[in-house]
């Protein structure tokens, strides 16, 4: 997305969601990520860092995003940010231990191009961490409804099923290591903090997938 994306024009509104309407949802998702953090080699990068909410909460020091206004907010949160797109090859090969994409894959033009680039910049033994709203989940259906109504953010989103995500990862040189599910409360009914559950659950609103980088030649 260019500098004219809704993530620039509505940056303040986007960032405010984490403190008002989405406050508990955000806390639930952060709690779920904390379950996988001990598995993840450093250094860490977040692709689609936005305003740096997750990066700050999870201790991710470096982030990229094409949206200028969001990056300015992320910078104030102490994140080292670069204005760039995930498809572009501007990091040296094998620079990171872990790359996070948190509700980002749904907004990129080419998921395959982004995943291939993530594969390239990960070190041997590196991991990718996806934070996902799956298309076939209650929250996926909720956001698809917003997309159809022309929501400024979600009209640009493409949500994927778990099967599609697994195929994307497999085709770009990753093997899924762990899945964590959370957000079992329904949209507009989130009232309390939840504990995440290991595994894939169809009624979860937010799914975390951790996958290992494998060499293309090493895959079966």
């Amino acid at each position, binding site marked *: 997305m*260019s500098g004219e994306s809704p993530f620039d024009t509505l940056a303040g509104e986007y960032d405010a969601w984490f403190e008002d309407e989405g406050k508990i949802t955000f806390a639930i998702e952060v709690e779920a990520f904390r379950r996988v953090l001990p598995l993840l080699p450093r250094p860490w990068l977040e692709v689609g860092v936005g305003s740096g909410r997750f990066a700050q909460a999870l201790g991710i020091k470096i982030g*990229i995003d*094409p949206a*200028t206004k969001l*990056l*300015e907010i992320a*910078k104030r949160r102490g994140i080292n*940010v*670069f*204005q*760039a*797109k995930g498809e*572009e*090859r*501007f*990091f*040296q090969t094998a*620079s990171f231990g872990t790359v996070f994409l948190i509700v980002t894959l749904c907004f990129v033009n080419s998921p395959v191009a982004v995943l291939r680039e993530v594969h390239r910049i990960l070190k041997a033994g590196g991991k990718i961490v996806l934070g996902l709203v799956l298309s076939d989940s209650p929250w996926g259906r909720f956001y698809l409804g917003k997309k159809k109504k022309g929501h400024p953010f979600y009209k640009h989103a493409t949500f994927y099923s778990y099967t599609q995500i697994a195929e994307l990862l497999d085709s770009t040189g990753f093997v899924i290591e762990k899945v964590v599910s959370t957000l079992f409360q329904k949209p507009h009914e989130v009232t309390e903090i939840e504990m995440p559950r290991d595994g894939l659950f169809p009624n979860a609103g937010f799914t975390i997938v951790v996958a290992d980088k494998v060499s293309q030649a090493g895959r079966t």
Partner: protein
Amino acid sequence: MDILACPVCKGSLELTVTEEKDDEVITGSLFCAKCNHSYPITESIPNLLPPDL
């Protein structure tokens, strides 16, 4: 700087500092001699979007 490369040719980038504060580059540029293209740093944020964006 060590982890960065030119997004077009993957060559190395040369940092020019215009303004610095507390060891942080506030404004400046990252120049690729091979492409003869300069990527600006504004408000401490390097812009590595390709030239056509």
